[in-house]
């Protein structure tokens, strides 16, 4: 039997452990999606409406610059989450997300979730803690890359 959206959300590593009531609230803003390799999930500059809980697959985050080939700066895969631009004005994507391995994800409507978080501050706090932890992890990873981890001749 197919799992319900609430079950998928409740078992996703990012939202695991949320109370059944909170999971139901999030599920009310969510639907299941599948996207094939090569599909553009979102495009830089477009209105950002969605948060994706990735169940399986991979999304590449690309930066495009005129006259240059796009650059993939990060990939996000199984058990992670992609898309923060719906959280803060001006609600526009700052990167392009391209599916690089067939994607199964829960798509959460950003404005619906913001509305529920504003109405239920306890839910908002729980969600923000979860999202902030991931953002911190990504910030640390970005700092590590600023160190140019593989940059010197060590190991030869």
């Amino acid at each position, binding site marked *: 039997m197919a799992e319900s959206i609430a079950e998928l959300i409740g078992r996703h590593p990012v939202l695991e452990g949320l109370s059944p009531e909170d999971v139901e609230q999030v599920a009310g803003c969510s639907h299941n999606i599948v996207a094939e390799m090569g599909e553009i999930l979102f495009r830089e500059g477009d209105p950002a409406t969605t948060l994706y809980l990735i169940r399986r697959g*991979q999304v*590449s*985050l*690309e930066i495009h610059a005129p006259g240059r*080939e*796009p*650059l*993939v*700066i*990060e*990939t996000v*895969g*199984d058990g992670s989450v992609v898309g923060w631009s719906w959280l803060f004005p001006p609600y526009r994507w700052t990167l392009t997300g*391209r599916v*690089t*391995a067939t994607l199964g994800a829960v798509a959460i409507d950003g404005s619906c979730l913001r509305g529920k978080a504003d109405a239920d501050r306890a839910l908002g706090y729980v969600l923000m803690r979860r999202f902030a932890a991931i953002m911190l992890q990504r910030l640390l*990873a970005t700092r*590590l*890359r600023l*160190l*140019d*981890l*593989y*940059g*010197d*001749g*060590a*190991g*030869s």
Partner: protein
Amino acid sequence: MALAAEAGSEVRHPLTPLRYRVVGKRRETEDTVTLSLLPVDRPIALTRPGQFNMLTGFGVGEIAISISNDPAAEEPLEHTIRAVGAVSSALCQTPPEGVIGVRGPFGTDWGVAELSQTDTIVVAGGIGLAPLRGAIRALLERRRPSGKGHLLSVVVGARNPSQLLFEEEMLAWQRAGAHLQVTVDTARPGWSGPVGVVTDQLARVPADFSNAVALVCGPEVMIRYTARALVDLGMPRDHIRISLERNMQCGVGLCGHCQLGPWLTCRDGPVFTYDLRAEGILASPHR
């Protein structure tokens, strides 16, 4: 005398190189080549994965380079060299049939002989895959009789796909049963693998971190953060082996050039256990 050559009765001075001929040369990346070497006269002593040799570009100078194959196997000695200075560039430019000097082997090794009964996670950054290649081959060889055995996981990070070493061979390791994860810092569209730091890949390794052993090699900052991440995932410090690089001159504990805290890297390393002392030394700006 322990440092004398084992082959023949002639006693060899540890600072005298033996002549080796380049019998094969493979370009790995834009600035990195692998030289296959056979002795002109007689060979150096048997080597173990993780050890290094001092290589001489005659008329240019000498540098320490890790052995990059499994020297126990019946094949030429291999060194993978990145051209970053005068000596390494000269070595990289040595033509097929050219002759270079080799003395060694020196230092501690990965200890692969003890790892046949344990899950092993190999983590390499950039050119750090070269000193681990021999260990990976030896570990896969040990798995071969049954085709099963303990997990061998290979996690590789590089700046971008063009800087990856041994790409074909990595696929062969995967076919032979290794669990392979390759990540790069940035890529062009078309790269289908992960993009991100190597430490982010560790949580995806399907191993019991409390019982597994890790072999880590790469630039020092990468080693530091990788070792910390492994400890955070539950690996005991003394299960983590790291390979450190210093400026080697004599290779035999005489000159002191390779000092790292209380250690001489050429003699006490290059492979160290990541204990609290090693962690402190790696984190210290004064060493």
